[in-house]
């Protein structure tokens, strides 16, 4: 009797441990991770796919154009949002900068929105008297940009009872700072239509 009870317990333990959930997922029946590169068609407002397509085509066109000889220093300006919707254009700039950086064709000077931190740090090191002399970054050695990169995004939105059509146009240009000449320019057009 004792033996039978013991073996029953052993069987139950073995079964329970065999069926134990060893998946590394906690909770989340309706939640899942998706493909960040998927074509997003949830609504026809500006979305992740548009951002990725713009950054990809602009970067490659610029890197392959042959303008960026000898890894020149480029300063990136924020993309102007001329559309009727809110777009975090800083993200377009960041994506373009990241991808250009990976191509190894350009170097980047402090952006206009990072300049304050750069100046603050230089001032702190040189004026506070807190740092060891030979470790202090010297002033007057920052590298100036040869080119500036400027872009804008605009949209045309049309609505009828059956359709909503959005046309985005993103343009980017590379301007020589000294001469003021635009050395390279490209644009990307995107059309998105919703049928109601």
């Amino acid at each position, binding site marked *: 009797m004792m033996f039978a009870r013991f073996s029953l317990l052993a069987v139950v333990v073995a079964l329970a441990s065999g069926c134990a959930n060893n998946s590394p997922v906690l909770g989340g029946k309706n939640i899942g991770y998706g493909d960040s590169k998927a074509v997003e068609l949830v609504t026809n407002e500006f979305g992740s796919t548009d951002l990725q397509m713009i950054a990809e085509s602009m970067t490659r066109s610029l890197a392959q154009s042959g303008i960026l000889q000898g890894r020149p220093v480029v300063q990136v300006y924020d993309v102007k949002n001329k559309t009727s919707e809110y777009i975090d254009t800083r993200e377009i700039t960041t994506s373009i900068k990241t991808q250009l950086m*990976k*191509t190894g064709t350009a170097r980047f000077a402090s952006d206009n929105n990072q300049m304050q931190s750069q100046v603050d740090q230089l001032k702190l090191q040189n004026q506070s008297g807190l740092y060891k002399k030979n470790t202090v970054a010297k002033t007057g050695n920052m590298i100036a940009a040869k080119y500036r990169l400027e872009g804008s995004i605009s949209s045309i939105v049309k609505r009828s009872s059956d359709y909503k059509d959005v046309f985005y146009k993103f343009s980017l240009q590379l301007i020589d700072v000294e001469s003021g000449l635009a050395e390279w320019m490209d644009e990307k057009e995107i059309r998105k239509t919703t049928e109601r």
Partner: protein
Amino acid sequence: MRLKLLAALATATLLAGCATPPPPAPGSAASKVVVMGKLSNIDIGPMRVARENGFMTVKVSLTNTSRSNKTMFYRFAWLGNDGFPVASEESWKTLSLYGSQSTVLPAIAPVPQATDFRIEVQAQ
């Protein structure tokens, strides 16, 4: 008896030949295409591969063989000398083809290290 054996042998060879289509020759245009699922009515034709200003550029010709408009999804994967990807995955893109339309799909490699590519395609 001999004839029968010969016939059986011939049939067997034929069957074996038909069972699996031969894999595309390495380096051919077909060997660069990865079809996810079934791609009906879209023909992927010749490809032009070049190196311009240090970056690999590819042009792929596509034809919609049906008379209705087709939408397909595609992306390129860029490989290095070792056959492994040299850049992170590209985002998927859509391409609309009108009925019977032929077009050319251009692409530029994201980094100079890319020496080979694959085009992944999927029909809607």
